[in-house]
């Protein structure tokens, strides 16, 4: 009788202990964690050399084809530019960003005549493969976003460098009005 009771107790304990399985740390790989199965010890494996991802043709096509200009493209380009480019190139594209201010080589202004005349594709290429001390941003900026950034750089250049003649008549009047007002202010003693 005693033995039977002890046996029953053991059985109950074993069943209960199954519930104590440590579920917080499950024996599976974490996205950025170690993976002991692989020679380089990483759970996240780089694709083998020569592999073509399913969306590679789509990415290549997006890189080749310049999307039509639209307000949505500019808005996207502005957001991406502010995230990835503005730390160095400054939100206005002058090249006086916070990182150059701390000792990084200063990038050229995007309003230089040479860069104003460069085709949009040139900016896409600089983002894709880098330029001089500027590294490539291909790992972080998707092909479609590279075109969006290029479009936004065009808008930045236009905003700063547009000839006054290209403005609507009402805007031009406002501009000259503002200039006159400014001149009066700086004009020394009356």
């Amino acid at each position, binding site marked *: 009788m005693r033995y039977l009771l002890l046996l029953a107790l053991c059985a109950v304990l074993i069943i209960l202990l199954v519930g104590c399985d440590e*579920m*917080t*740390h*499950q024996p*599976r790989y974490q*996205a*950025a964690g170690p993976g002991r199965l692989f020679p*380089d*010890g*990483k759970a996240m494996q780089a694709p083998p050399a020569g592999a073509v991802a399913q969306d590679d043709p789509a990415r290549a096509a997006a890189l080749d084809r310049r999307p039509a200009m639209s307000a949505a493209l500019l808005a996207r380009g502005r*957001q991406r530019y*502010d*995230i*990835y480019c503005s*730390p160095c190139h400054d939100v206005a594209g002058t090249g006086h960003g*916070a*990182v150059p201010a*701390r*000792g*990084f*080589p200063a990038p050229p202004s995007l309003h230089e005549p040479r860069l104003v005349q460069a085709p949009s594709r040139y900016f896409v290429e600089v983002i894709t493969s880098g330029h001089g*001390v*500027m*590294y490539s*941003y291909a*790992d*972080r900026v998707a092909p479609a976003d590279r075109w969006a950034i290029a479009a936004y750089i065009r808008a930045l250049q236009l905003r700063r460098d547009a000839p006054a003649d290209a403005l609507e008549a009402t805007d031009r009047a406002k501009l000259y009005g503002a200039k006159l007002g400014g001149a009066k202010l700086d004009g020394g003693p009356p």
Partner: protein
Amino acid sequence: MPQIFTASADTWLRAGVLLAAMGVLVTGLLWDGAIGSSYITAVGWVRDQPVPFSHKHHVGDVGIDCRYCHTTVETGPHAGFPATHTCMTCHSQLWTSAPALAPVRDSLATGTPIRWQRVARLPDYVYFNHSIHVARGVPCVTCHGRVDQMPLMMRAQPFQMRWCLDCHRDPGPHLRPPDQVTRMDWRAWDREGHADYGPHQAALLGIKPERMTDCTLCHR
């Protein structure tokens, strides 16, 4: 027949019941305090990192957006940690001989990633997804606190089930414009009085709070 109970038995019984009740109460209070304490939830604790990476410097002072480094936060379940290449976009030229950055240079030379100590982590049996929260406009600061003021990363919220549920029962008031999710300081927004923006947005997006507390949403 001899007496089974002594004259004081009643008193002992009452004292015993009282003691037991107090014991249960005190244990309950202690337990509640313990699971809410920062010792269990790890709120405000920092860990030794291989590189003393400072979000205060990079986000607060230099003004880099979260997505410059945590690239997949908008598109995937994980925010992800920056590749060594990402650090090198700046540190190939800046602070190139700083001893603090030696592990970063080693990592680049040997191709082994830096092993960061995780601070904000859920148990493996919980499913979490960044992209939906970011797309709906829950700002980083709601869950990770003022990252731009942290010299070393620490956990800002308890990450317990009740914390997730507190929001999931009524997400409306927590929603902000999705294009500003990485903004850290919302005091101006609160002052400007946008109290009805969130609830309105929740209705517009068709968020159903009654579905957001299903166990299978987070335990799948």
